[in-house]
């Protein structure tokens, strides 16, 4: 009975938020664009392979080895033109989108796991533990991370990747090569940078929730501390967490693009929107399409993520201030 009641209440809260989100026209456009983008990068490369036979690495045979110009403007065959080496840019942009979105999403998940557990534990235990844990967050806040991330990525980049990163990337990513371990290093570095605000948000929420009756009831019925935190408190702070996570993804993607632009992020044989744009910049005045298509695709995605995050914030917790 109690279970049923909670179930009904839960869905109505989310349905309510969904209704509010649908009223926000810009957020809906953002959501549609985002879903379209995710579908495009997931199945797009297969469709291109089936229809035209191009992949991200394939150099069409009409491009001669040592020819003067290999980069062709957009045409019917190559909707986004070709890159320096004559590879189909559309295939590369879609393939790069996979990496960009993957870096954004996985780094956000890393920051979610660390930040939510950290904030929930600090908030639930309170007192001295909370004090110490939050002081540590304050200390981390003051550190200019970008300096450390740059050092981390450049000294551990390429062949110098730490053993556990290489092992992890071989286990999950399959064939162990430098490019893949660099991407895993990015997940790790960017995730560790962005958990601080998440920890603060969650801690504040848990602090105000832990004296509610449902926590008392859970404790009275013998639920373990771990169970109370992760089964009862964390699901109740999902609203702000989702909002903040939606806004973390674009900021992580921007940082990844920035690092790739400096040559520290995603590296060959892989490409991301950031590294494609960085490649395009070299030839901007002669082959502008090499810059325009990757960066417009990325800007559109970030645009929709930002609008969606804004709309979700209005829909899920109307009380917080809108930035």
């Amino acid at each position, binding site marked *: 009975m109690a279970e049923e009641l909670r179930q009904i209440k839960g869905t109505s809260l989310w349905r309510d938020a969904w209704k509010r989100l649908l009223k926000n026209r810009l957020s809906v456009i953002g959501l549609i664009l985002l879903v379209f983008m995710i579908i495009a990068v997931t199945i797009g490369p297969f469709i291109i392979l089936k229809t035209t036979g191009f992949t991200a690495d394939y150099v069409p045979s009409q491009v001669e080895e040592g020819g003067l110009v290999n980069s062709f403007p957009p045409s019917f065959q190559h909707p986004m033109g070709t890159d320096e080496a004559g590879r189909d840019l559309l295939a590369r942009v879609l393939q790069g989108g996979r990496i960009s979105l993957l870096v954004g999403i996985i780094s956000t998940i890393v920051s979610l796991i660390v930040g939510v557990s950290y904030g929930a534990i600090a908030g639930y235990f309170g007192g001295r533990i909370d004090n110490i844990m939050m002081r540590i967050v304050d*200390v981390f806040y*003051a*550190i*200019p*991370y*970008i*300096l*450390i991330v*740059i*050092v*981390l990525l*450049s*000294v*551990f980049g390429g*062949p*110098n990747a730490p053993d556990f990163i290489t092992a992890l990337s071989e286990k999950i990513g399959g064939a162990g090569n430098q490019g893949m371990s660099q991407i895993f290093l990015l997940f790790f570095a960017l995730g560790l940078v962005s958990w601080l605000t998440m920890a603060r948000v969650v801690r504040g929420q848990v602090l105000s929730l832990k004296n509610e009756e449902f926590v008392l009831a859970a404790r009275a019925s013998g639920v373990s501390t771990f169970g109370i935190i992760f089964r009862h408190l964390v699901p109740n702070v999902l609203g702000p967490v989702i909002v903040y996570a939606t806004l973390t993804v*674009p900021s992580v993607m*921007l940082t990844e*693009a*920035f690092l790739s*632009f*400096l040559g520290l992020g995603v590296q060959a044989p892989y490409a991301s929107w*950031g590294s494609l*744009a*960085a490649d395009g*910049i070299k030839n*901007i*005045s002669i082959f*502008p399409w090499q*810059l325009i298509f990757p*960066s417009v695709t*990325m*800007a*559109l995605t*970030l*645009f929709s993520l*930002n*609008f969606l995050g804004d709309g979700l914030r209005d829909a899920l917790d109307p009380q917080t*201030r*809108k*930035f």
Partner: protein
Amino acid sequence: MLGFILKRLLIIIPMALLVVSVTWALIRIAPGSFYSNEKTLPPAIEANIKRKYGLDKPWYQQYFLMISNVVRGDFGDSLKYQGESVNDIIKRHLPYSATIGALAYLVALMVGLSAGIVASIRQNSGFDYGSMATAMLGLSVPNFVLGPILVLVFALGVYWLPPARWGGMTNLILPVLTLAAIYMAYIARLTRAGMLEVMRSDYIRTARAKGLSETSVLLRHGIRGGLIPVVSYTGPALAGLLAGTVVVEKVFAIPGLGNIFIQSVLNRDEPLTLGIVAFLSILIMVFNLIVDISYGILDPRIRYD
């Protein structure tokens, strides 16, 4: 208040040392070194070099040597730029980055604040929607894309401005705009949201009830409260400016500190990297302190103890 400032100033020192230690550890743990890029040296010469830089001692002695040098503000000579001290290199390259960074934040403040305030006064007007959509666009275009596009249009398209390099005032316009764009956008959004909230609060109603003119309500009472989110954004903005200048310096070929930093890390030029990291972390933390102090001036409700 004085106690608060003193306490915070004292915390900065161990924190800067922590950042330097982490950086040092990262550089040392990673395989390879400055000398691994060069051709192999005869063993006698290598031993001499190692002795000169104290690399033959155990790691904890090297660490304490490094920390004691850093505490004294002496970072030694750069490995790459032979015979030049790290402090000289920082002194030489800082002015470029500082000029661009300061100008960019100033421009961002002026444009962002005015756009945000006007948008909040005329909420839901065409200007409001237009400026906020532009701001969102500004947040979504990376500066390394914006920079080359500005160059393409204004330098290579209509020939109004020089495309790159350090020089006169006209050389500054494009780099500053490129760097300022994202902060302009963020500040405009923050100002608008802050103003909208403040203008609904009780003390504004009191000010209006006293019979103050709308201009004076807005300028004397509204802006003070509405600015607080903007002020608290200054901290993160500074860290971002740092990253931004790296990009802008690279795009516009400006000999600033950001590029020197990246190069030093890639060259494994340890003294130079540590020197720049220490300098920039202290700079950022001091600015954060100034931001915290200015809260108290803007919002009389905030007290320090």
